């Protein structure tokens, strides 16, 4: 690692700008305190280095092809400058112009935010991952190229920067070394937001230059808009899968369920992250069991074209306002078509935020259909007395991961805790938790990004703090014979948990497993057959 890399060095040749040496990373708690026993970081292949821009650090998130000529480089630089201008224009960025301008123009560069960032901390304080590093690069470009007199005064006023293709390529990659968890923003004494700056940088690259993570765009938003879901499931496949889940769940719990589809005028339209249906079918099974037992008038929607009814993901939240708006409008159309009273969002943090909070200022008129968190409805059901519970069935150590989008960014803090406090006798909090939580390390789309060796970076650096927190939460019971459960009520976070547990072999070495909230609820239902949670399926 180069601990003293300066902001202006982003434009200078170096391959890479800064190394991430696993020996520089903070030591994890036992039994991972021996660096030799931790999985090795695969180096980038020579082929990848030859084809793609890789001069930032030791990984690649975006697979940006190297320009073939000087002319192409110059065209890309001009395109970047056009995008920069649009980012600060009323017409093209009304969505975030005010907060972006404030964050650009008022930073005191006090670095108070730095220690709040889990990536900066757990990279061993690698300078390029400091929350202000990429913000400062953009700030200097903003003052130099957009402000009057920038060429003359910006170096003195704001610091030196040179714009070349290397700067742009590194900045693009650097915008995907942040989980957008906004923990840094929470600590800013001036109320500024480096997370927002990163978010808008991603927008500039996507909306102007067509540079994005293919997992988020091609295999995410675009696939969803084409077939109805980023999983690739069309309505026939999703119905078939749900039918199978219903049968399997009925058999396991002894409570017959049949998921209702396309019920007009239902009270609740439940929209899952469709990844649950593919990767964690027990999650939908648990929702269906709870809703049926509580007598909720609910439905799923099979809309996949004019409207999007069965996959609540909205990856536009992470990189592109246009994609965000397209998907949000189609989600609302699914609810409008059925005439439901409200949309309830399943266990998916980013979908919560995208549709409830962000799209709140996108949807107007009849499309402004009430949206509610499943956490709120589940709490009401659990405490309503409609279902009998036997908490002794959950008598194993449980801790709760707070999904950033749902907790810090929406203030949904207590419902899930109150459920766990009631149903899990050995529930314990992580430190810190609630709105002060740390991201799982898979936030902002990282959980589905594993190209090249990006998964190694995600496991070693961005997921390291959560790993440390989990081990601390269970520090007195790490014996693998004691089954432990990390409750992560968010598909994206669950994806990251699954990868962390597999990567570090945490089930075999520590007896740590993971899952959602609804699985714990059904596991404690007195009328269901015991043993809904399946352990150690890694």
């Amino acid at each position, binding site marked *: 690692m180069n601990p003293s890399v300066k902001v202006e060095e982003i434009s200078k040749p170096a391959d890479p700008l800064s190394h991430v040496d696993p020996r520089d990373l903070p030591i994890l708690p036992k039994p991972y305190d021996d660096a030799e026993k931790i999985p090795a970081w695969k180096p980038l292949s020579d082929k990848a280095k030859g084809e793609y821009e890789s001069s930032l650090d030791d990984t690649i998130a975006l697979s940006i092809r190297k320009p073939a000529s000087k002319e192409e480089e110059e065209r890309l630089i001009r395109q970047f400058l056009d995008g920069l201008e649009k980012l600060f224009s009323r017409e093209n960025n009304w969505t975030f*112009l005010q907060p972006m301008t404030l964050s650009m123009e008022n930073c005191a*560069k006090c670095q108070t935010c730095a220690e709040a960032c889990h990536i900066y901390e757990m990279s061993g304080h690698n300078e390029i991952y400091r929350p202000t590093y990429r913000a400062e690069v953009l700030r200097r470009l903003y003052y130099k190229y957009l402000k009057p007199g920038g060429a003359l005064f910006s170096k003195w006023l704001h610091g030196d920067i040179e714009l070349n293709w290397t700067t742009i390529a590194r900045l693009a990659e650097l915008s995907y070394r942040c989980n957008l968890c906004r923990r840094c923003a929470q600590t800013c004494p001036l109320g500024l937001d480096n997370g927002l700056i990163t978010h808008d940088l991603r927008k500039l690259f996507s909306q102007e230059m067509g540079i994005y993570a293919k997992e988020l765009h091609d295999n995410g938003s675009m696939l969803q808009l084409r077939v109805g879901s980023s999983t690739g499931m069309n309505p026939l496949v999703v119905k078939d899968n749900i039918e199978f889940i219903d049968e399997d769940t009925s058999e396991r719990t002894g409570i017959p369920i049949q998921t209702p589809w396309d019920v007009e005028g239902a009270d609740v339209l439940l929209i899952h992250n469709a990844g649950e249906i593919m990767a964690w079918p027990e999650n939908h099974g648990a929702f269906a069991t709870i809703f049926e037992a509580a007598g909720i008038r609910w439905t799923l929607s099979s809309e996949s074209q004019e409207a999007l009814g069965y996959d609540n993901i909205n990856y536009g939240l992470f990189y592109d306002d*246009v994609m965000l708006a397209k998907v949000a409008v189609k989600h609302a159309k699914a609810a409008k078509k059925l005439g439901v009273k409200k949309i309830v969002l399943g266990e998916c943090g980013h979908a919560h935020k995208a549709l409830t909070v962000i799209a709140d200022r996108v949807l107007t008129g009849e499309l402004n259909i009430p949206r509610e968190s499943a956490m709120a409805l589940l709490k009401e059901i659990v405490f309503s007395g409609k279902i009998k519970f036997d908490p002794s069935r959950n008598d194993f150590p449980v801790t709760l991961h707070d999904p950033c989008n749902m907790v810090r960014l929406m203030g949904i803090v207590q419902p899930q805790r109150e459920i766990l406090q009631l149903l899990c006798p050995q529930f314990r909090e992580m430190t810190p938790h609630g709105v002060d939580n740390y991201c799982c390390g898979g936030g902002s789309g990282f959980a589905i990004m594993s190209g090249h060796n990006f998964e190694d970076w995600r496991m070693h650096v961005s997921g390291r703090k959560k790993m440390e927190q989990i081990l601390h939460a269970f520090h007195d019971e790490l014996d693998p014979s004691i089954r432990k459960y990390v409750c992560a009520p968010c598909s994206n976070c669950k994806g990251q948990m699954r990868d962390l547990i597999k990567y570090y072999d945490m089930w075999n070495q520590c007896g740590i497993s993971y899952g959602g909230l609804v699985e714990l609820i059904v596991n404690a239902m007195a009328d269901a057959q015991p043993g809904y949670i399946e352990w150690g399926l890694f």
Partner: protein
Amino acid sequence: MSTTVVLYLITYLAMAAFVLAVAARFVKIFRMPLHLRWELYPVAHEMGNKAKYGGSKLEEVDWWTKEEGKSRINELKAMIPEMTFLVLLYEQNRKLWYRSFPFHFGLYILSGMLALLGLGAVCELYGVTIAAAGTSVGSVIYYLTKLAAIAGLFLASFGAVGLLQMRLGDANLRGYTSPATIFNLLFFLLVFIVAWLTLLFADPTFDLTRAYVQNLLTFNLSAPVGSALLGLEILLAVVLIAYIPMTHMAHFFLKWFTWHKIRWDDEPNRIGGAIEQKIIEQVQYPVSWSAPHINADGKKNWLDIATEEIEKK
């Protein structure tokens, strides 16, 4: 035109520049389009305990049917300590707080001193003598002004030196410190040093300064300042005051936006409400982003683009 008249004119100009710069920056930000919600919890105006643990109305079933309560008391409980004592900095960056808090608190006290000088000047216009042995009101104003000047200058000077030392010496800050930042701190220090000298050697009773303020209020531009040192201090101080809102130090009032209009802006969009009207206007803005998947041409607006089907291969 005499030097004295020029100084009075510069003072008026600087005050006008300060007001105009604050107004211009405020209006520029204020007139920006309504942005998408981007709140960050805890949101201080949440009711009851929610403000403390960071909860929101979104924790409730059918939250949109419930009364939209906002607690101004909770908001003040967060705002007043933050504005006065820089609580976030105290909690998150203690090393910097030891320098930044005295600097800022010193400036608050010095602002109070300016108000006391104005009050003293007005009182004198109405025949109240401001002096150690003056009337009870005059004596209180006299001592308060002096106390505020000494306390404010002491704290602000200590803070400015500390901030300069940290900017130059702390590896975390050095790479992010521009020459202008150092200039700003040196400018403050220069103003404070000349203020100390003025206080000690030129105008320990503030009689000359108060007279200057009185002359400003009565447009008596021919009255002498009475001390070259005081004249220099006035010149430096007013230029500094005019300069502040043109820099990132404008955060002293722009913080209102970052808290009230961003972090704590959880106002839901209601059908037929003012927010909805603004959204309807803003989705008419033309889009000219160039990436192929946006499919913009500079004529289509946000509504067109957001509702347009993508090409289905």
